[in-house]
C-alpha cells in the first residue's frame, strides 16, 4: 500500500511512542536498582535525574564494587539477609535441570506423535493440550501433600520435577511441530533401507531438528525461571527461586525497593538476551507450535 511521506512519518512516531510506553516500566525498574532510598521515595518521583549507585547490587550479590557495601551482613526490613547469591544459583539449577527433564521426555514422545500412525493419536494430542489447562493451584495443593509424604518438600528434586512436568505440554506440542517440518519421506526411505526407528531418530531426525529443540529448551528455561506458585508452595527455606524470594522483600516494616529491583534486574537481563536468541521461533513457541512464522 502506498502511503504519503507524512503518513509514514506519523506512523513511525506513533510506533516509537507506543513501544516507548511499554518499555518505560522496564527502564524505571532498572533505574531504581541504581538508586539510593532518597531517590526512590521522592515526591514528585524522580524519573531521570538521580545519583547512580551500585550499592543495591553489592548488598544483594555480596560482592564489593569498591563502595564499601559489599558485606553479606546488611539486613532487610523484615530481619532477613539481603545476600541473594544462593537464590540466583537455585534458580539456575532448577531451570536448567527441569528443562533437561522436559526435553528428554518430550523429544521421544513428540517423535512418535509426529511420525507414527496409531489409533487415538489425535485424542492423545488433545489430552496433552488439556493438561496445559490445569490451574497451577489445582496441582500445587495435592502436590504439596504428596511431596510431604515422599519428603520432597523443599528439595531441588521436587521443584525440578514439578517444573519439568509443568513444561511437558508445551515441549511436546512445540517439538511435534518442529518434527512435522522434517519431511517424512526421509524416515520412510531409511526404514526401507532397514534402519530402526531408534537409529533414524538419533542419526537423522534429532540432528535436523537441532534448532527447534534449542528454541524449545530456551522457552522451557524461561517458564521455569519465571514460575511463582509452585515454588512458593513447595519450598520453605531449603531453596527459593528469584521471583519468590523477591516477594519476601515486601514486609510490614517496609520494602527494600532498591535491592528488590537489583535482584529483579539481574533476573530479567539474562532472560532478555535469551529471548532475543529465539526471536525467530518466539511466536511458534508462545502458541505451543500452533502458529508457524
Amino acid at each position, binding site marked *: 500500500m502506498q502511503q504519503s511521506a507524512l503518513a509514514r512519518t506519523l506512523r513511525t512516531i506513533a510506533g516509537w511512542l507506543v513501544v516507548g510506553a511499554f518499555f518505560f*516500566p522496564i527502564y524505571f525498574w532498572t533505574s531504581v536498582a541504581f538508586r539510593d532510598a532518597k531517590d526512590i521515595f521522592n515526591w514528585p518521583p524522580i524519573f531521570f535525574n538521580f545519583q547512580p549507585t551500585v550499592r543495591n547490587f553489592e548488598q544483594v550479590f555480596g560482592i564489593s564494587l569498591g563502595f564499601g557495601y559489599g558485606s553479606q551482613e546488611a539486613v532487610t526490613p523484615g530481619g532477613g539477609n539481603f545476600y541473594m547469591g544462593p537464590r540466583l544459583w537455585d534458580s539456575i539449577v532448577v531451570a536448567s535441570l527441569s528443562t533437561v527433564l522436559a526435553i528428554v521426555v518430550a523429544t521421544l514422545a513428540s517423535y512418535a506423535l509426529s511420525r507414527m500412525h496409531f489409533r487415538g493419536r489425535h485424542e492423545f494430542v488433545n489430552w496433552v493440550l488439556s*493438561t496445559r489447562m*490445569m490451574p497451577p*493451584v489445582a496441582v*500445587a495443593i495435592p502436590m504439596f501433600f504428596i511431596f510431604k509424604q515422599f519428603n520432597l518438600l523443599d528439595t531441588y528434586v521436587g521443584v525440578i520435577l514439578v517444573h519439568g512436568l509443568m513444561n511437558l505440554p508445551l515441549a511436546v506440542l512445540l517439538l511435534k511441530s518442529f518434527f512435522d517440518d522434517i519431511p517424512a519421506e526421509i524416515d520412510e526411505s531409511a526404514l526401507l533401507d532397514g534402519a530402526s526407528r531408534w537409529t533414524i531418530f538419533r542419526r537423522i531426525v534429532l540432528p535436523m531438528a537441532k534448532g527447534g529443540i534449542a528454541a524449545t529448551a530456551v522457552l522451557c528455561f524461561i517458564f521455569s525461571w519465571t514460575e*511463582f*506458585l509452585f515454588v512458593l508452595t513447595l519450598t520453605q527455606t531449603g531453596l527459593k527461586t528469584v521471583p519468590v524470594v*523477591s516477594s519476601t522483600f515486601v514486609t510490614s516494616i517496609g520494602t527494600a525497593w532498591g535491592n528488590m529491583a537489583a535482584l529483579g534486574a539481574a533476573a530479567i537481563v539474562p532472560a532478555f538476551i535469551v529471548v532475543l536468541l529465539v526471536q525467530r521461533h518466539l511466536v511458534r513457541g508462545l502458541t505451543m507450535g500452533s*502458529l508457524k512464522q
Partner: protein
Amino acid sequence: MSIAQVKRIAISDSPWPWLLPLIALLAVFTIYPFIYNVWLSFHEFVPKSRGLKFVGFANWVQLWNDGRFWGALGVTFLYFAVALTIEIILGMAIALLLDAELPGFAMLRAVLSMTLVIPPAIAGMMFLLMEDSQFGALSYLLGLVGLLDKATPMLATSSLALIGVLIAEIWQWTPFMVLIFMAGLRSLPAEPYEAAMIDGASSLQMFRRLTLPMMSRVIAVAVLLRGIDLFRVFDYVFVMTSGGPGTATYTVSLYAWQQTFSFLKWGYGATLSLTSLVIVMVMANIFIRVAKVRW
C-alpha cells in the same frame, strides 16, 4: 518376558515405548492430583487431632453457600473479560501499527517481546512500586492528567484495586497478542487486498472483510492460550494486593491457595481448586469445539 521379546517391542513400530515416559509423568502430574483433589474435597483437616476427617459433602455445601467464593468467581470472570478484551483490541491495533518496514520497527518488535520474559511476580512488584500513592511514578503521572487524586492509594481503594492489578496484567501480556497477530498479518496473501483496492474498498472495509476473517484462526489460538492463563491468575494479585482491600481482588486461585495454606482448610481448598479446574476445562473445551481450534 525374554530379552528377545523386550527387544522386539523396542524396535517395533509401536509408539508406546516412545510415549511411555510422557504418559507416566503426565499421570503423576495430572491424573493423580485430580483424584487426590476429589478425595480431599470430601475430607477436612482437624487441627486438634492433626489429621483428616471424612466430612461427606460438607465442603461442597459450604462452597455453594459461600458468598466469598461467588465473589471471587465474579472477580475472576471480570478480570478475565476485561483483560482479554483490552489485550485483543490493543494488541490488534499495535500489530497493525507496527506491521510496516519503517525506521527502527524491527527493533521495536524485539523490545516489545521483552515484557513476556519478566516473571509475573516481578512485574507485579514493578507496578506495586509505580502505583504507590506516596512516591509511585504511575500514580504521579495519572495525577498529572487528572485521573487520580494524590490522596487515593490505587491498590488500597476497593473500586480501583482491580484496575491497578489489571494495568500490570495488560502491560505484560498485550505484547503477547501483538507478536502473535503480527505473525498472522505477515502470512496473509496479498492478492485479495489488491483486488479490493481495485474495487475501491476503504481500509476499514478491508480490515473487516479480509483481515479479520483470514486471521480468525490466529485470533482463536491467542484467545484460547491467554484465556486459560487469565482464568487462573494468581501471581499479580498475590504480590500486589493479597486479595485486598477487603475481598476486592480475591480470585478463585488465590482464595483456594489461602484456604489451604493460610487457614489450613485443606479439604475446602481442594474443593475450590477442583472447581476452578472444572470451569477452565469446560470453558476451554467448548471454545475449542466452537472455534474449531486444532493442534
